[in-house]
C-alpha cells in the first residue's frame, strides 16, 4: 500500500526550501484547505442544483434551463446572484437576532463536516481520530438552527416546520449512527481514511455494500431524511406548511438554507461513497493493475494518476447517489408525519439494531472477511 501524494508535506517542504521556518510554513498551509473546502463545497452545490434542474426536467419530459450558458450551466450562478441581491426582509414582528442567527447555525456545521471527507490517501483536511463521529455530532446541531428559525419567524407554519424538522432529524439520527457503528465495527476505526483502506485491495468486491447491504439501505434512507429530501421533506412541505421554517425568509438568508440543504445532500452522498462504496478506490485495484503492467508504484505519473483518479471516483460515486436522490424525488410521494416517525422508530431502528448484532456475529465468525 503506497501512501499516495502528500500535498501538505510537499507544500511545507517547498516553503522551507524557500527559506521560511517550519512553523510559518505550517501556518501558511492552514488557510489553503479551508478555502479549498469552501470553494469546493460551493462548486459542488452549484453542480448539484444544475443537475437537479436538468434531471427533474428530463424526468418530466421537459428541457430545463437552456439559455443561461451552454446547456443552462450558468443557471445556478444566476440563482445565487438573484438571492444575493434580493431584498433581505425581516418581518416586523419577528425576533431579528434569532431570525438572522438561524440560517448561519444550519449552514456552518455542514461546512465543518467537510473537514473529514477524504478524496485520496492524503487528500483530506484532517484525519481526526474521531472521524465519522464528528460528522454525526455536527449534524445534530442543525435542528437547533431550524428551531431557532422556526421560532423567530413568529409564524405558526414556520414554528410547526421547525418542530417537525427537529423531530425528524433527531429520530433519523439514531438509525444513521447505528449503521455507521456497524461499519466502524468492521474497520476497527472511526477515521474515514481507515474505513476506506479497509475496503481497498479487492476492487469492487471489497466495498462495504456487499458486507453491509442492510446498513447501506438504512444509511441512505436516514441520510435522505436528514437532508429533508423527498419523500421526507415534511418540514418544508409546500402543500401543508407553506414552506415550513423557510416561509418568512427571503434573499440571502433563504439562500443560506438552500445552500445548507444542498451541501448536506452532497455531503451525505460523499459519506455514502466513503462508507459503503469504497471511497476513492477504482473498480479494479489500481496497485495490482500497476504491478501486472510491471510499473513501479513510486512512478510519479502513476501517483498523479492515482490521486486524480481517486478524486474523480469519489465525486463520481457521490454524484451517482445525488442522481439517485433526484430520481427518488420524482418517484416517491411524500410520507405523512406519522408514517415518517413510524418508519424511523418502528422499522429502521430495530432493523439497524439487528444489523449491528448481525455484523458483530459475522465479525466473530468470519474475522478475515469482516475485519477481525
Amino acid at each position, binding site marked *: 500500500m503506497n501512501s499516495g501524494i502528500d500535498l501538505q508535506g510537499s507544500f511545507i517542504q517547498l516553503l522551507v526550501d524557500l527559506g521560511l521556518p517550519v512553523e510559518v510554513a505550517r501556518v501558511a498551509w492552514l488557510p489553503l484547505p479551508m478555502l479549498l473546502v469552501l470553494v469546493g463545497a460551493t462548486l459542488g452545490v452549484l453542480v448539484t442544483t444544475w443537475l437537479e434542474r436538468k434531471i427533474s426536467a428530463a424526468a418530466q419530459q421537459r428541457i430545463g434551463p437552456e439559455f443561461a450558458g451552454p446547456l443552462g450551466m450558468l443557471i445556478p450562478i444566476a440563482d445565487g446572484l438573484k438571492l444575493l441581491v434580493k431584498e433581505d426582509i425581516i418581518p416586523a414582528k419577528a*425576533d431579528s437576532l434569532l431570525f438572522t442567527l438561524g440560517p448561519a447555525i444550519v449552514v456552518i456545521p455542514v461546512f465543518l463536516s467537510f473537514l473529514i471527507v477524504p478524496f485520496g490517501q492524503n487528500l483530506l483536511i484532517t484525519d481526526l481520530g474521531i472521524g465519522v*463521529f464528528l460528522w*454525526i455530532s*455536527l449534524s*445534530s446541531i442543525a435542528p*437547533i438552527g431550524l428551531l431557532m428559525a422556526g421560532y423567530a419567524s413568529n409564524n405558526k407554519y414556520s414554528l410547526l416546520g421547525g418542530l417537525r424538522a427537529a423531530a425528524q432529524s*433527531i429520530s433519523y439520527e439514531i438509525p444513521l449512527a447505528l449503521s455507521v457503528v456497524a461499519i466502524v465495527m468492521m474497520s476497527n476505526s472511526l477515521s474515514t481514511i481507515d474505513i476506506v483502506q479497509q475496503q481497498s485491495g479487492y476492487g469492487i468486491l471489497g466495498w462495504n455494500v456487499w458486507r453491509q447491504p442492510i446498513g447501506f439501505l438504512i444509511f441512505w434512507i436516514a441520510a435522505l431524511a436528514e437532508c429533508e429530501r423527498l419523500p421526507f421533506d415534511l418540514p418544508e412541505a409546500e402543500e401543508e406548511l407553506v414552506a415550513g421554517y423557510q416561509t418568512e425568509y427571503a434573499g440571502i438568508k433563504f439562500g443560506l438554507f438552500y445552500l445548507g440543504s444542498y451541501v448536506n445532500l452532497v455531503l451525505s452522498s460523499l459519506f455514502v461513497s466513503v462508507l459503503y462504496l469504497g471511497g476513492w478506490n477504482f473498480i479494479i485495484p489500481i496497485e495490482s493493475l500497476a504491478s501486472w503492467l510491471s510499473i513501479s508504484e513510486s512512478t510519479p505519473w502513476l501517483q498523479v494518476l492515482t490521486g486524480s483518479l481517486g478524486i474523480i471516483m469519489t465525486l463520481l460515486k457521490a454524484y451517482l447517489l445525488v442522481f439517485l436522490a433526484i430520481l427518488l424525488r420524482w418517484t416517491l410521494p411524500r410520507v405523512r408525519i406519522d408514517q415518517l416517525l413510524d418508519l424511523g422508530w418502528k422499522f429502521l431502528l430495530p432493523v439497524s439494531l439487528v444489523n449491528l448484532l448481525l455484523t458483530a456475529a459475522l465479525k466473530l465468525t468470519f474475522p478475515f472477511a469482516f475485519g477481525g
Partner: protein
Amino acid sequence: MNLADGVQIVSFGVLALMMLGAALGVVLLENIVYSAFLLGGVFISIAGLYILLNAGFVAAAQVLIYVGAVNVLILFGIMLVNKRQNFVPLRNAWVGKITTAAVCLGLFALLGTMVLATPWAISTAPVAGDTSTVVIGMHFFSDFLLPFELASVLLLMALIGAIVLARREFLPDALEREETQQPVLTLPERPRELASAAPGSPDRTLGTSPTQRNV
C-alpha cells in the same frame, strides 16, 4: 512560550468568556427561549474546552448528546408549554435573590481559595490524545462494565418513564361511538383531547409574539 501555547491560551479565554456569558444569560434573561438557545452556546463552548483538554471523543459526545438531544428536548418542552403568562410577583423576591447571590459568591470564593491553595499532583505521563476512544472503550468493557450496564438499564428506564409520564391519558371514545350511531357520510367528531384546549381557556396558539412569551 511557543505558538501552539499562545493559541491555546487565547482559545481558552474566548471559550471561557463565551461559556460564562452564555451561562449568565441562561440564568438571568427574562425570555426563556433566549435562555434555551444560550444553553446551547454553553454546551458548545464546553465542548471546545474538552478539545483543549485533549478529549476529542468526549467533546463530540458532548455536542451530540447535549446540543443535539438535551437542548432540542428543552426547546421542545418550552414550545409545548408555551403560554403567555406573567408570574404573580412575589413580595420581597429581591431579598431571596440577593441572599442567593451572596451565598453563591461565597461558595465561589471558597471553591476558588481551595483550588488555588491545594498543591495538585500534576502527572507528566503521556497524553492519550487520539487513542482516547480506545482507552475509554477498554475501561467500559473491563473495570467499568457494571456501571456501563447499569447506565444502559437506567437509560431504558428513563425512556419508558418519560413516555409514560408525558403521554396523554387514553380516551375510551371507541366504545361510546358504537352506541350513538353517526349518520352516514359525516365524519364523527373527536372529543377534545385536552382540558386546557377547551374554549375559554387562555390563548396558547403557536404563533404568539416571541417578545411576549412567559418568563
